[in-house]
């Protein structure tokens, strides 16, 4: 994989966007923060493909170079024809890490699952791991649905499950439905993101039955952050996630659902930033 030349870089809000190319993949990569700084690789969730436009990016970009790709098949990134599993994504990001050099990984929801898939394979370039309301493991018994059926519940139920403040979620969540004011292109992009998520994780639904046992291989400092009101994957699920990773600490953020970094960005920063600084001092 190669980043495109500097003249291929464009401004994206306060950051920049460039295209990184591998043989059959074009990866859209957003970046923000000083180029020489320590790097944070942010892996997005499935309904939010926000590049460096999260409420926490500005704060973290003061100390770190925040790099936030759109996953293959999401946003402006292509989907190679052979891709149909989370492992395919994990190997892309292991290549990205080899290029950027060691980075802290921050995985949000679905992106948290990708981060875990990366870390169980190799932590050589992973300085630390932050998992936020991550999907990907099986916790309950075989008749328990650990992960909400986000594609089957109604849009308003999905907001209820995902947000502590459902009224705000109703207003902000970019769902592919008629009454949100999206045009055809915008709807197509949102639906494409969901199509890729379904391709990668329909059955077993949003998890790999073998991942939990493999989490024991993760040997880097790990912080597991969870929204106290998350109805997609519960805080109990999050605690089980943290217990499965040897060096993990669990932190609950109040008044937040599946997206604590959107609902409580200040509390999120206050939790994540000291963890990252602690890792760097150690």
């Amino acid at each position, binding site marked *: 994989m190669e980043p495109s030349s500097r003249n291929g870089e464009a401004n994206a809000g306060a950051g920049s966007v460039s295209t990184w190319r591998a043989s059959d993949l074009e990866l859209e990569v957003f970046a923000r923060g000083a180029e020489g700084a320590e790097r944070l690789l942010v892996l997005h969730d499935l309904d939010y493909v926000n590049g460096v436009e999260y409420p926490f990016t500005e704060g973290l970009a003061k100390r770190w170079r925040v790099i936030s790709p759109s996953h293959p098949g999401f946003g402006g990134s292509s989907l190679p024809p052979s891709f149909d599993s989370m492992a395919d994504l994990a190997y892309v990001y292991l290549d990205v890490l080899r290029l950027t050099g060691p980075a802290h990984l921050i995985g949000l929801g679905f992106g948290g699952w990708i981060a875990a898939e990366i870390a169980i394979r190799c932590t050589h370039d992973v300085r630390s791991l932050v998992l936020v309301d991550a999907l990907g493991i099986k916790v309950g018994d075989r008749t328990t649905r650990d992960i909400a059926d986000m594609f089957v519940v109604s849009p308003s139920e999905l907001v209820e499950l995902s947000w502590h403040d459902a009224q705000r979620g109703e207003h902000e969540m970019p769902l592919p439905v*008629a009454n949100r004011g999206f045009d055809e292109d915008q709807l197509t992009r949102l639906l494409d993101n969901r199509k890729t998520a*379904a391709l990668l994780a329909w059955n077993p*639904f949003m998890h790999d039955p073998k991942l939990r046992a493999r989490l024991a291989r993760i040997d880097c400092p790990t912080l597991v952050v969870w929204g106290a009101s998350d109805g997609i994957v519960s805080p109990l699920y999050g605690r089980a996630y943290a217990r499965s990773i040897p060096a993990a600490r669990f932190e609950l953020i109040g008044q937040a659902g599946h997206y604590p970094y959107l609902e409580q960005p200040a509390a999120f920063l206050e939790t994540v930033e000291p963890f990252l600084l602690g890792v760097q001092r150690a």
Partner: protein
Amino acid sequence: MKAYFFTEMPYPYVPEEVERAYGSSRVIVPNRYCDPAAAAELYNRYLDEYEYADELGLDLMLNEHHQTLTCMDAAISVSAAALARRTRRAKLVLLGTPLPHRDNPVRVAEEIAMLDCISRGRVVSGFVRGVPTEIHPSNTNPVLNRARFEEAHDLIVKAWTTPEPFTWEGRFWHYRYVNVWPRPYQQPHPPIWITGSSLDNVPWVADHGYVFASFLTPYDWTNSLIDVYKRSCAERGLPEPSADRFAYLALCYTAETDAQAEAEGQALLWYLRRVRHPQFNAPPGYVPPHVQAQTILGGARKGYGDSFETLQEKGIVMVGSPDTMIRRIRTLYERCGIGHLLMMNQAGAMPDQQVRRSLELFAREVYPEIRDLGEQPAHPQTVSSERRSAAFRP
């Protein structure tokens, strides 16, 4: 024009308020609402109706759905097996086996080859993707639905036509030894029919020379699908496909008078008026995202909520006296050029006596008048059972 009797084998006893409470007639209406004793009566009644249609000289169509009160035929080869032994003349159109949802396509090849032998070559093997709600009972990947369909199809046809063991190492299925016993009675294999209601799979159907079937689409929509088929043939320098390449399914009911047909035929609307769950009907990636986006913004719909009159104008519903039915079927033929009329001639709680009376009237007074529509020499893909032993080399 060939006519086929079809019922979805509905279970019409679930109160509407139950359906509304669950927001769906499929997938999640608890099966506690299905009384097995009532189901037993219904299965036997519906199979008796099929046998009666065979006696009347009609051909038969069967289908399959899962976890739904709209259709108790949950295993198409089971119902086809029951009819293969109890009917003597009719074609048995299985339309169809939902290929992407089957775990084992070789088993499908075996079942259909067996049915073809038991029925002495009366099987038509329809293959379908399955409606979107079928994704949930089988929990198969909606994005890979088409790819699974095509690989299963390729494997089944190869299993039917390869007279010795072969290996299959595909994307979805792996077998070290495929060697289906029996071979199909019809050689090289039973005719294949494919359904579709959007443009994306029609060229594939045309390329294979299969019969294309459209269900409950308005005339114009049906026409545009058939046009794509014809254009695909023209682009490949193939002869213009004849009417026997096209099938259409409508809700049909014949009675002594128009007034009686209008009154009794209303019962057919039961099928169209079931509660449709928006999310179960739109699993991600089942249709291309840009098409789904257009649908969200109010794109083309089949119009199942239309009035009885509008549904008749669109050709989705065809009811009437024998004379009216003859006229309606001629109109369908003139507008769309189809050669197979699939008559969903029973829906919901429509009573057995009405179904039988309707079929009798149709067979006696309508069918003789429409039979010749579009009749031409058989298409090369339609292999008659007389030729069955041509490829057999002991």
